[in-house]
């Protein structure tokens, strides 16, 4: 009986549907102190003076700290694995609290009070005088002569990346036609439903415990210790259930300050919870990126040369900053082949909300540019856009010339075929010719490729399995459950590897860095592939130990035995020899040979695999209203073997809905004069409600990835990548108008339709 590939029920479904699953705030207690952050109301400047005496005097206020009171240790919040090579370490450019203001809402002081109301009141009593500079809201502002430097000596440039493969000039010279264009993506926010929250306390031995809604507990531990300048072992991080992450919690946003405050309260726990408004504008956002793209094509539709420049205003601090823009370049490389290709990526400090990881790490941005541009080229050379793509897509066996990662399995062509059938592309294309009138329909599609984890960047994952007396196991994993279903899929991989039923696997969901195996956490769609490898190895080790003991108990040759469905069986016939329970009991209580069966595996993953897929969409555009209605949308994915079809489908639904919001409505707006966020709340931000979300069709083309656990590859982030360019291409198909800037909201649509004389 197989577990991988089946729709087993999520291990946490019942706890969650009963309201019993504990999230950070559910674990907090009434006597906890409450911390609040005092934030700047200017985007760029210095604090000239600050007076906290009135706040301190307010009854119920325990503590007020300012930038003067924090350790002078610069640190980084980026949730990357640590690097022993100083060159590869993230830029440490912030302190716990700051006198230099680098964006609207920057953190100047913090209060700790007996309750929330008192803490809020205390914030109002803090008096501050600023020396104010012009806000720097764009790349142009940041780089112009005389712009104030946000970080000394940088010229406001965080970093530049450049690479080239092949002879670019020669390839462009040879091309029959060269196309150039520009694309701009917008600043959006993750909007996980649970706001950023943690609480912290100091134990009597001086160790600090931080309970946090994070995707990366082991990294939080390291960053907290670095920011406070204490040994890493002095910090313990606990992660219970969390209300979504989408990359925002791959950043160590508030835990260092929370931990610092907890060192000042004599052991009393301190809670630091962000409001929805703080969550929007002072955690992280997705990088807006401006792309300049150039492509050389032969008459027959062969792409010969590709060139891309990307520049992004990353906000006041580096955080993940450059890595995301660099990643956009890497994934730009890996969908189509050509003779020569070049990429230049630049990240620039601006006094805007800090950018960071968000579902698919730079790829929704670059694929919007790339897949829009590819569509335009196909139309310009009079080629069918699908045929044009198919001609140039990478094939199995393709090796990325820079990373060395190889395409071992590739279902992209099959995905396109399925999507085309599902939406009835050919039939509708014929019907949609020669439309007139204010409402028009159109079809669009877009493709992506993605990686499973981050290799050749550092990858490490851990899993531990303990066999119980009754033949069940505890599975401990370092990969974190953030809603995506990692606990369940990793439990399935464990069951499959051991040959025991899924309901015999008890997954320990709560992470505690004191006991949880080392793993860098949930990001980069790495859990199933990278952490799954560790779980599979651990399962295989347990199975080998079960067989070894059964062999010694029975004298049946080892090779003749197998474990199937919780039983040790004859491998050739399946006939039962003894239950795993019987073997387990022997391992615990055999007076001569007792040695309970466990496995503790760490997997340094040194391989990667490519996931592929596409979006097909049909829209109806109401031109006078600037309204786009999605009539049908399908996402088709090659993520290798699908471990749990029900959960996988859910990942696609969620990703596509996020992609639709990215395409049509979501955008975090800043006041152009002051840099103040204008719509940082769920009412004004235009997050898709249930009414706005169309039916979403999902299909999988299951390939077998030889390097993945049971053939699996990445799935979590990819669904969010291609809805935006597919919708853009469908609007183009319907109206003939090209939208090169996100979001494609009514205002922009109406403006452009007017300019095009359509309304």
């Amino acid at each position, binding site marked *: 009986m197989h577990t991988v590939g089946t*729709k087993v*029920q*999520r291990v*946490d*479904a*019942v*706890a*969650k*549907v*009963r*309201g*019993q*699953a*504990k*999230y950070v*705030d*559910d674990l907090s207690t*009434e006597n906890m102190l409450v911390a609040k952050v005092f934030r700047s109301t200017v985007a760029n400047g210095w604090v000239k003076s600050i007076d906290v005496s009135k706040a301190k005097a307010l009854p119920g206020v325990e503590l007020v700290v300012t930038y003067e009171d924090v350790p002078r240790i610069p640190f980084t919040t980026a949730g990357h694995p640590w690097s022993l090579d100083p060159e590869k370490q993230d830029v440490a450019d912030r302190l716990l609290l700051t006198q230099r203001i680098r964006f609207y809402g920057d953190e100047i002081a913090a209060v700790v009070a007996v309750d929330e*109301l008192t803490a809020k009141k205390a914030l109002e009593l803090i008096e501050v005088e600023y020396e104010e500079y012009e806000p720097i809201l764009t790349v142009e502002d940041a780089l112009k002569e005389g712009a104030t430097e946000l970080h000394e000596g940088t010229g406001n440039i965080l970093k530049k990346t450049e690479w080239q493969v092949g002879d670019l000039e020669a390839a462009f010279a040879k091309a029959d036609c060269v196309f150039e264009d520009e694309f701009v993506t917008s600043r959006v926010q*993750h*909007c*996980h*439903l*649970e*706001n950023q929250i943690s609480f912290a306390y100091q134990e009597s031995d001086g160790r600090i415990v931080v309970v946090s809604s994070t995707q990366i507990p082991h990294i939080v531990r390291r960053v907290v210790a670095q920011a406070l300048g204490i040994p890493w072992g002095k910090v313990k991080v606990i992660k219970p*259930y*969390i*209300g*979504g*992450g*989408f990359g925002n919690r791959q950043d160590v946003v508030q835990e260092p300050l929370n931990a610092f405050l907890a060192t000042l309260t004599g052991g009393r726990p301190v809670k630091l919870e962000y*409001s*929805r408004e703080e969550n929007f504008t002072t955690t992280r956002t997705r990088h807006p990126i401006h792309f300049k793209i150039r492509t050389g094509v032969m008459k027959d539709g062969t792409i010969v040369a590709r060139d891309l420049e990307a520049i992004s205003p990353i906000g006041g601090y580096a955080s993940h900053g450059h890595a995301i823009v660099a990643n956009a370049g890497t994934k730009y490389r890996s969908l189509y082949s050509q003779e020569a290709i070049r990429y230049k990526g630049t990240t620039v400090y601006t006094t805007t909300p800090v950018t960071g990881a968000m579902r698919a790490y730079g790829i929704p941005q670059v694929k919007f540019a790339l897949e829009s541009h590819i569509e335009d080229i196909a139309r310009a050379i009079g080629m069918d856009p699908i045929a044009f793509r198919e001609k140039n897509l990478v094939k199995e066996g393709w090796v990325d010339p820079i990373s060395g990662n190889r395409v071992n399995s590739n279902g992209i062509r099959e995905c396109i075929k399925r999507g085309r059938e599902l939406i009835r592309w050919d039939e509708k294309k014929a019907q949609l010719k020669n439309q007139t009138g204010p409402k028009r329909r159109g079809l669009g599609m877009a493709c992506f490729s993605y990686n499973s984890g981050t290799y050749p960047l550092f990858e490490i994952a851990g899993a531990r399995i303990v066999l119980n007396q009754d033949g069940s196991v505890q599975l401990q994993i370092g990969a974190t459950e*953030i*809603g*995506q*279903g990692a606990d369940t899929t990793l439990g399935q991989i464990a069951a499959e590897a051991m040959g025991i039923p899924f309901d015999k696997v008890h997954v320990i969901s709560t992470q505690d860095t004191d006991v949880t195996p080392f793993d860098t956490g949930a990001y980069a769609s790495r859990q199933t592939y990278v952490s799954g490898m560790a779980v599979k190895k651990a399962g295989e080790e347990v199975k080998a130990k079960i067989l070894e003991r059964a062999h010694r108990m029975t004298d049946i040759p080892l090779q003749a035995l197998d474990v199937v469905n919780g039983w040790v069986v004859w491998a050739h016939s399946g006939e039962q020899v003894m239950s795993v329970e019987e073997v387990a009991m022997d391992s615990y209580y055999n007076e001569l040979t007792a040695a309970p069966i466990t496995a503790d595996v760490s997997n340094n993953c040194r391989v990667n695999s490519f996931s592929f897929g596409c979006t097909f969409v049909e829209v109806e555009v109401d031109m006078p209203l600037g309204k786009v209605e999605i009539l049908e949308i399908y996402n088709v994915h090659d993520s290798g073997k699908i471990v749990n079809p*029900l*959960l996988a*489908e*859910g990942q696609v*639904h*969620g*990703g*596509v*809905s*996020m992609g639709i919001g990215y395409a049509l409505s979501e955008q975090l707006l800043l006041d152009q004069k002051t840099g103040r966020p204008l719509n940082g*709340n*769920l*009412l004004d931000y235009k*997050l898709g*409600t*249930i*009414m706005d*979300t169309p*039916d*979403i069709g999902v299909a999988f083309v299951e390939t077998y990835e030889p390097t993945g656990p049971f053939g699996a590859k990445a799935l979590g982030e990819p669904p969010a990548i291609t809805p935006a360019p597919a919708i853009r291409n469908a609007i183009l198909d319907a109206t003939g108008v090209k939208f090169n800037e996100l979001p494609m909201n009514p205002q922009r649509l109406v403006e452009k339709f007017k300019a095009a004389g359509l309304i």
Partner: protein
Amino acid sequence: MQTRNITFTVNGKEVSVNVDVRESLLEVLRNRLHLTGTKKGCEVGECGACTVIINGETVDSCIYLAIWADGKEIRTIEGEEKNGNLSRIQQAFVDEGAIQCGFCTPGFVMSATVLVESGEKLSREEIKKGMAGNLCRCTGYQNIVRAVEKVMEENLQAK
């Protein structure tokens, strides 16, 4: 601080609490009665994570003062399971894969409960309207709608 004694039923049990007159029902449920199944996603009536049922109607408990609950009948997620059995809508959420991070789930279950208990056969659009005050960032709402439709169909067949 002004306080007041209020009495209401929660999940069929009568409770009396002394509350700060400024406190929201959400705060009283979570902090005083330790009913932490009801969640907080915004505190200003935008997300629906805090949805409870008061006298048969769904309410965002974050913008409902606790003192208004005096004398009312309140249902929270903790009361939906009876004798160890999930309610039918809870079970449908589990079976249809309508749960991911789970933070919106209690609120959605309460909204869905009122819809299925209405006994009416609602169209997909009407179901969506009935849950338009609940936000979910994980599921794209697909399987949530599917779960509600499933229970409604079962209700019809049972009639």
